[in-house]
Structures are given as C-alpha cells and as structure tokens.
C-alpha cells in the first residue's frame, strides 16, 4: 500500500516541471480583453448577477443583482458589507437607456457595455460585471 502510494507520487517524475511561477500566484481579478460593445436596450432584458465588482464600491458591496424588464421597470439588490453584519439593500424603479448610458432613475447615467450574456456598468464608484442568469 505504502509502496503504491510512493509510486503514485513519484510516477510523474519523468514529466516536465509544473511549478507555479512566483509571479503567477495571484488570481486574475477580471478579464480585460473582452470585446465589449456599447450596450443596447435589448441587452438589459433579464436577470443579472455580478461576477466581479472593481473599484471603490468593491470594498463595501459583495454582490449585486438586477432584473430589468422590457417595460422599463427594474429591481435590484446589493449585498452590502462593512456594517455589523452584511445586509441586502434593494432598489426598484424605472430604467432608461440613452446615448449617455443607463439611467436607473437617479438622473446619473452610467456607462453600459455588453458582451454575449454579460453586462458591464461603470460609474464613478467602480465597475461591475454582470452575468445574465436564468430565473429557475
């Protein structure tokens, strides 16, 4: 049994080294070479969950969810951390999309980009990448 164990450990000895380079130990924060395009109104239809949040907001928001309806209404939730306990903050309102970007009803348009199944919203506080999800 023990012999088999050692064999298993040493069997790949003839294979080339597979040591992680010391400069490659950190995890990539987010892919940046995606071919993002300007979002169109149709890109906002559906339910989205954040896959990454970067920027200042990342220190206080752990996850973001949005549901955009074609009728122009939306609802959203953010898992806000930094208080005593994490808590969800929710929003509802009307959304519009124009040349200046996505307006969530507060009169402050945010830049919106889209890729296949993804949305990226960029505002002063940071950038959130959202993946489209299916509501089951």
């Amino acid at each position, binding site marked *: 049994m023990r012999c088999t164990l050692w064999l298993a450990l040493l069997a790949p000895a003839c294979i080339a*080294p597979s040591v*992680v380079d010391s*400069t490659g130990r950190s*995890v990539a924060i*987010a892919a940046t070479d995606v071919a993002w395009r300007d979002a169109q109104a149709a890109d906002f239809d559906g339910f989205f969950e954040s896959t990454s949040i970067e920027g200042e907001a990342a220190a206080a928001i752990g996850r973001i969810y949005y549901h955009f309806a074609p009728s122009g209404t939306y609802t959203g939730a953010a898992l806000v951390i930094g*208080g005593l306990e994490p808590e969800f903050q929710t929003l509802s309102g009307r959304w519009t999309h124009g040349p200046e970007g996505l307006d969530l*009803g507060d009169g402050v348009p945010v830049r919106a980009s889209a890729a296949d199944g993804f949305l990226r919203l960029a505002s002063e*506080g940071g950038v959130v990448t959202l993946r489209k999800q299916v509501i089951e």
Partner: protein
Amino acid sequence: MNLSRSLQYFGVAALAALVIGSAIALNVVKGRIQVVVSEAEDAAQRGPDPLELLRADLAELRAEIARGDELLPQHLQTVHDSLSGDATTRESAVRQELAALRTQLANVEARLETSARSNEAARAQTEATLQRFATALNDLSTAIAANAAQAAERARVEVVAVVPVEVAPVEVAPVAVAPVEPTPAPVEPPPADTAKKGFLSFKVPEKGFRFDARQRLAIVPSLSRVGFDAKSTLHDFSGVTQKVEGELVVDLSKPGDAPKGRISVECASLDTGLADRDEGMRELLESEKQKQITFTWSAFEAQSVDTAKQLVQGTVRGKLAIRGVERELAMPVKVSVDASKRVGIEGEARIKLTDFGIEPPSQLGMIEVEDELRLWISLRARTLGPVEEAK
C-alpha cells in the same frame, strides 16, 4: 341790722341744735348698727372699676401706638426695599433677556456668515471637483488610447480567447505557468472622504476600508490562492488551492500592534495537476481525518510601513498545523491595497515535511521528494469594518 344779727343767732342756734341732735341720735343707735368692712367682697359686688378699665385701655392703646411708631419706619423700609428689589430683579431679567437676544442675533449673523462662506467654499470645491473630473477624463482618454494601442500590439503577436469570468480556474499545467495577470499595483490612497456615496443607485456605507484603523479583514476565496512548490529528484511540481478562508484583525498602519487571524485551507482541494499524485498527497495528509491545514496568525514584525503608498513589509509569525501537528512558522510577506480597497497579502516560507510527522515520499532510495517545501500564499481580503476591542 337787727334782722341780720337775728339770723346769725338763729343759724348758730340751729347748728348747735343739729350737733346736739346728731350726738343724741348716734348715742341712741350706736348699739344697733354693726359696720363690717370687706374690701374684696365690696369690690366683687361693685364689679370692675370703669375708670380703671378706661385707664387700662388707654394705656394699652398708648403702648400700641408706641409700638406702631417704632415699627412704622421698619415697615416703610421693608416696603421700600421690596419695591426697590422688584425693580432690580425685573431690570436684571430684562437685561438677561436682552443679552440672550443679542447672543442669538450674533449667532444668526455668524451662521449667515458661515453659510455664505460655506456656499463660497462649496462652489469652489465643486469647481475644483469639476476640474479634477476634467483632468481625470483627459487622463482616462489618454490611458484608453494607450491601452488600445497596446491591445492592438498584443493582438498581432498572440491570440487569446478570454471569457469574462471573475476567476480563472486553477490549472497547473505540466509546464511553468505563465502569469495570468500581474498583481494590481498599489494605488495612492484616496483623500479622506467620509460622505456616503452612491454606486449604481445603491448607498455605500461610510464604513469603508481604512489603512490606519484596526479592522476585520475577510479572505476572498475567489481571489486568493495558497500553494506549495516541491522538488523531487526528477520532477518539480506545485500544489494549489483556492479553497481558502479566514479572517484577520489588524491595523495595517501599526501591523505589529496585536494582529490576529486564522487562515484555513481545505487539504483535499490541493491540486498538483495529476490525479494520482493528488490522491497520494491526500493520503499523506490524512485529509479524511484532518480536513484543514490552518495557520494561526499571532504576531507581525514590520520591516516597513508606507502609509502613503499603503504598503507593508514584514514577517508574519504564528502556528501552522498540518495533519494535526502544530509548528511555529515565520513567513515574510508583502501587504498592499488594490484599487478596490482589497488587501493583498503575498508571501512564502520554507517548511519541512518531517517537522509535521510526514516522511517525504521516496522510491527505492533513488527517486525522492525533498523534505523541504516552499509554502506560499497569495491572498486578497476585504474589510468587514473597523473593530473596537480591547487589545
């Protein structure tokens, strides 16, 4: 004349007759009359003497008048004092009210002045902010143009299909792994700003990350990695996992001031890129019994703390537990803060398997794994907020 003389004689005679008659009468009745003198009874029978009563009343009135005369100046003085006191009190109260009104007026004037200054300051600040935005936009445009040029350059030399996911899966290829993306450079600390900010209409709490505050930091598993590099006679390899979790409590500006924390790694998740080798490693680590490798952080020896650049270098000290065996560990680390206010911790240290009761794998004494491993961490942690605790 004769008549006068006759009347004189008659008068004398009558008087003499009256005296003689009275003496006779007295002599006759003196044995029959008993005179008893009793003053008290007499007085009681007579009652109080009205004259004496009047005199007494008069004396009493005189005494009262005398007392009144004596008291009158005092009463007059009291009345005078009282009237004077009321006037003084009223005057004092009025003065106080007047002073309060003057103070209020001064406050209002001060507020108006402050408000005017604030408006000026706010306008100046807004203009400065707009100016900064304009500068930032110009910088951003320049950066975008530069990035576009670099991307175009890269596109000519390599074709990489990248899916926009948050975390790339850990893959240990049989060749040296190229860096996926360099660690973000530490950013300059932003100016202190405690105002509540919005992000995509959400309200971001004021309690954000602070370099100079003792706070709880939670490891973000999806952005963290822990691994080891091992050497064998013919082949070197790494084992890596992202199944890492834990919390740290530290003031990064004073990292040696009672830091503490615990980091856990799931043994069975260590991946060397070969399933058979992974299986053998799990048996060595007895991962069925001891599911976690843990490091308990108890001290930090700072070599440098750069508050401006939010960089810390030093040595973390604590206890590493592998397969239930605990040993002291000192690991030099570099701590930084990225643009997302996440704390990055990079470090490595050498450990010996035999220190933890693990015999290095060997086959016939010819092919051996070295006893010494290089253990490394690449962690990212986000703040959970400041802590107020007794150190």
